[in-house]
């Protein structure tokens, strides 16, 4: 039987502006059998999306197919007329884009867009299509399947949109579906649900698929075969288990090594307790006018307390929108807070950066999330660093230059880079410079806000190594804000779990996954995919088994005093959780948890 997808010697070239044509995809061949799922693995710039789109006969402007053949479900994609191509797209082969938030047209209702592929191919009348869409919504576990179609993209969450996009892709019962990083933009707790639904639906419908991703754990859960791409060329092809467990190509091995959860913990973490360097007490940050309670109208960070000892590394984890970046801005003095206190070295910190002493500003440095926007694009990086050196230590001329070189060395970069502009650096190099900029102040504590989020796995791993080295060599303290539990576990000694602005749990990082935790912490921990075949099914099964019968919630509008996780909590206790605000409980391993800790998880660990 011929493969459903057959790509042979594919060559794609492209040009930038008026430059020369450069190869983007080189001699790529692979095939996918009917009903199988192939993973296209690669880092950014590897050409994986280009290959995936070429399967639909779509080449982005400025590029063209220079050679090779693509056969999908019996069509010779490279030889189709525009009309034939149109009739194939959406009907025989459909596409699930990476970022559903921007791939849905904001001006059209969901239903119009979901039924559109079927409508333009005149598969069924609109009314029947809408009925089919509703049943797909139900299958994909979307809330209010009957009416969700009337809403607009701006009114829905990322996870919902991603599932709606899948629904759209399935409307025409296509033979092939291309998934382009469909879960990358999602929070882990959402990702697992989406993945589970996807997998179930593929199996049920016998869909042949191509799954583009950089996340090896996801690959292990969802694909049968995998192709590893680098710089537009195939490095390795094989079954998923072969690639994940016996990689032959050095690049595959490196990828795997970087993705492997690994501890960078040193003995340092086990040294005796140090005095608190930074102490955050009941911090409240928000927007809008103050309410009668003296709190802002919209609370973003809600009574968060934690402390960071000297030389300590605190991880702050939470999903998008939980208030972690606002917390970072407040601590840096860029966002005034409504209530609470902050102490650095025992001295109270003012809310506004302008009211802090130069010493305080120097001791507390922020390394912001986006390396692209954090460096002034019109200044050579040497100048940027020099300015910081000069600002804080007053060094000039020769001495300043020496210090800049020292800093570059500290972040393992060549001093020759000092004359470059940020645009001439790679993402990883920029993030290192970003670090050097913070170090230039000679700080005591560094706030790192999602610094690895935009980086490829290998590069991110190197940055984490760097942080650990700096902690060890300079005795620096860190607050590491992230949504990546692996990264956090690998370097942090303590962790604060943020949910809806509240620190639902603060405790040692080493105990994650064991002992007593807040239900959200458990959910978070359990949702991070492991590189084990069958993990997804196992987890889902376990969840279904464990789920306590959900008690009806108090229908009244949620009281801000009540548990913020109430609506999603599978352990909630009716009559308690929806009536009494959760207490802060200390549990044996040294964590404090903001929860009633229902019987199912509480038992004997209470101290």
């Amino acid at each position, binding site marked *: 039987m011929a493969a459903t997808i057959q790509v042979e010697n594919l060559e794609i070239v492209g040009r930038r*502006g008026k430059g020369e044509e450069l190869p983007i995809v080189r001699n790529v061949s692979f095939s996918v059998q009917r009903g199988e799922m192939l993973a296209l693995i690669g880092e950014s710039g590897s050409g994986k999306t280009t290959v995936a789109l070429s399967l639909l006969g779509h080449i982005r402007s400025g590029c063209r197919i220079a050679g090779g053949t693509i056969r999908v479900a019996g069509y010779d994609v490279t030889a189709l007329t525009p009309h034939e191509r149109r009739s194939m797209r959406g009907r025989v082969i459909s596409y699930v884009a990476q970022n559903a938030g921007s791939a849905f047209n904001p001006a059209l209702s969901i239903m119009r867009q979901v039924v559109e592929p079927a409508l333009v191919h005149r598969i069924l009348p609109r009314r029947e299509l809408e009925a089919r869409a509703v049943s797909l919504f139900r299958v994909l576990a979307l809330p209010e399947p009957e009416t969700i179609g009337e809403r607009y993209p701006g009114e829905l969450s990322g996870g919902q949109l991603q599932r709606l996009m899948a629904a759209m892709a399935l409307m025409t019962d296509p033979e092939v579906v291309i998934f382009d990083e469909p879960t990358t933009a999602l929070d882990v707790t959402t990702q697992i649900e989406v993945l589970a639904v996807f997998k179930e639906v593929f199996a049920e419908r016998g869909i042949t698929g191509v799954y583009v991703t950089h996340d090896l754990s996801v690959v292990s859960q969802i694909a049968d075969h995998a192709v590893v791409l680098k710089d537009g060329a195939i490095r390795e092809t094989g079954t998923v288990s072969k690639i994940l467990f016996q990689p032959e190509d050095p690049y595959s091995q490196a990828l795997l090594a970087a993705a492997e959860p690994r501890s960078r913990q040193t003995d340092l973490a086990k040294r005796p307790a140090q005095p608190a360097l930074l102490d955050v007490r009941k911090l409240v940050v928000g927007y809008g006018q103050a309410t009668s309670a003296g709190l802002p109208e919209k609370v973003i960070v809600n009574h968060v307390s934690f402390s960071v000892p000297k030389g300590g590394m605190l991880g702050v984890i939470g999903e998008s929108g939980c208030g972690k970046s606002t917390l970072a*801005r407040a601590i*840096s*003095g*860029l966002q005034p807070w409504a209530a609470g206190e902050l102490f650095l070295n025992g001295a109270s910190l003012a809310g506004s*950066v*302008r009211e*802090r002493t*130069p010493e305080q*500003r120097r001791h507390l440095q*922020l390394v*912001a*999330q*986006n390396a692209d*926007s*954090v*460096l*002034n*694009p*019109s*200044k050579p990086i040497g100048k940027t660093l020099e*300015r*910081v050196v000069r*600002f*804080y230590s007053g060094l000039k001329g020769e001495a300043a230059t020496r210090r800049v070189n020292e800093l570059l060395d500290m972040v393992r970069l060549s001093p020759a880079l000092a004359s470059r502009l940020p645009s001439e650096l790679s993402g990883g190099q920029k993030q290192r410079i970003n670090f050097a*900029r913070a170090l230039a*102040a000679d700080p005591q504590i560094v706030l790192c806000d999602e610094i690895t989020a935009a980086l490829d796995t290998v590069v991110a791993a190197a940055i984490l190594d760097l942080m650990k080295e700096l902690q060890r060599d300079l005795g620096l303290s860190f607050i590491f804000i992230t949504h990546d539990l692996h990264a956090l576990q690998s370097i942090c000694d303590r962790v604060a779990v943020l949910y809806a602005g509240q620190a639902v749990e603060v405790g040692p990082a080493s105990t994650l996954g064991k002992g007593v935790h807040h239900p959200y912490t458990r959910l978070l921990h359990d949702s991070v995919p492991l590189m084990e075949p069958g993990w997804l099914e196992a987890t889902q099964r376990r969840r279904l088994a464990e789920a306590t019968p959900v008690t009806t919630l108090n229908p009244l509008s949620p009281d801000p005093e009540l548990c913020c996780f109430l609506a999603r909590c599978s352990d909630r206790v009716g009559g308690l959780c929806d009536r009494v605000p959760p207490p802060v409980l200390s549990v044996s391993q040294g964590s404090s948890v903001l929860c009633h800790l229902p019987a199912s998880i509480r038992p004997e660990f209470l101290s």
Partner: protein
Amino acid sequence: MIVMFGKLRSKHDRAVLLIAFWILLALLGPLCSSHDPGAIGMQPVFSGPSMAHLLGTDYLGRDTLARLLNGIRHTVLLCFASTLFSCSVGTFLGIAAVTSRVWVEAVTGRLADGFLSIPSLLFALLVIAVFGTSTGALIMTMGIIYTPGAYRTSRALAQRIARLDFVTVARARGESTPYIILQEILPNMAGPMIADVGLRFIYSVLLLSNLSFLGIGVQPPEVDLGSMVRENMLGMAYGSPAMIVPVIVIAVLTVGINLALDSSSGKR
């Protein structure tokens, strides 16, 4: 402005080079002609090209080429000065609106809106009627007319840049507002602002031409391109270069800069 030019990268090179070329031509051009642009001989008016007068003569029998070079000088320098005025004032206000208190933005925004709603020709007529047709008044008038536009552009740019992390970082460091404006915001506005300068330069060339058409321009015997077209308009009936060539020069000037800007902005 000088700072900005110093920071140029390849993006807007062509437009800047082109403007530089015209400024150079404006400064040196008049030296290239052997004729005195004011010399009125007894030669016929609107004569065609000849060895003595390469582009013929104008409506008073003066040498068209010499007049043309003179006209380029006035048009280019006047418009450049007024563009510099509008863009520097506009940039200053735009940045001020972003970096200072909220009411500053509200007031400047309303003012800009109000100014934009007055037709520019009406405004020019009124101002020139009050202050007379001195070169300074012309520069100021055209400058003021295009300030609201420059203000809007620069405010939008500054707003975008001020939100970027490197500005946040500088603020967290405790840098002073002037430092943030001069070192962090301004240099990054340079590229787009130069595109804006180019556009506004073209607008002012056209506005000056239209003003000249209504009889408001530089003082005779000096001439700008628009006045030159205006005073030689009757030459159209004879296909006189005195009328046609300045039109072509205006078109070449504006189309050229437009094209250069177009191609540079297309690459973004």
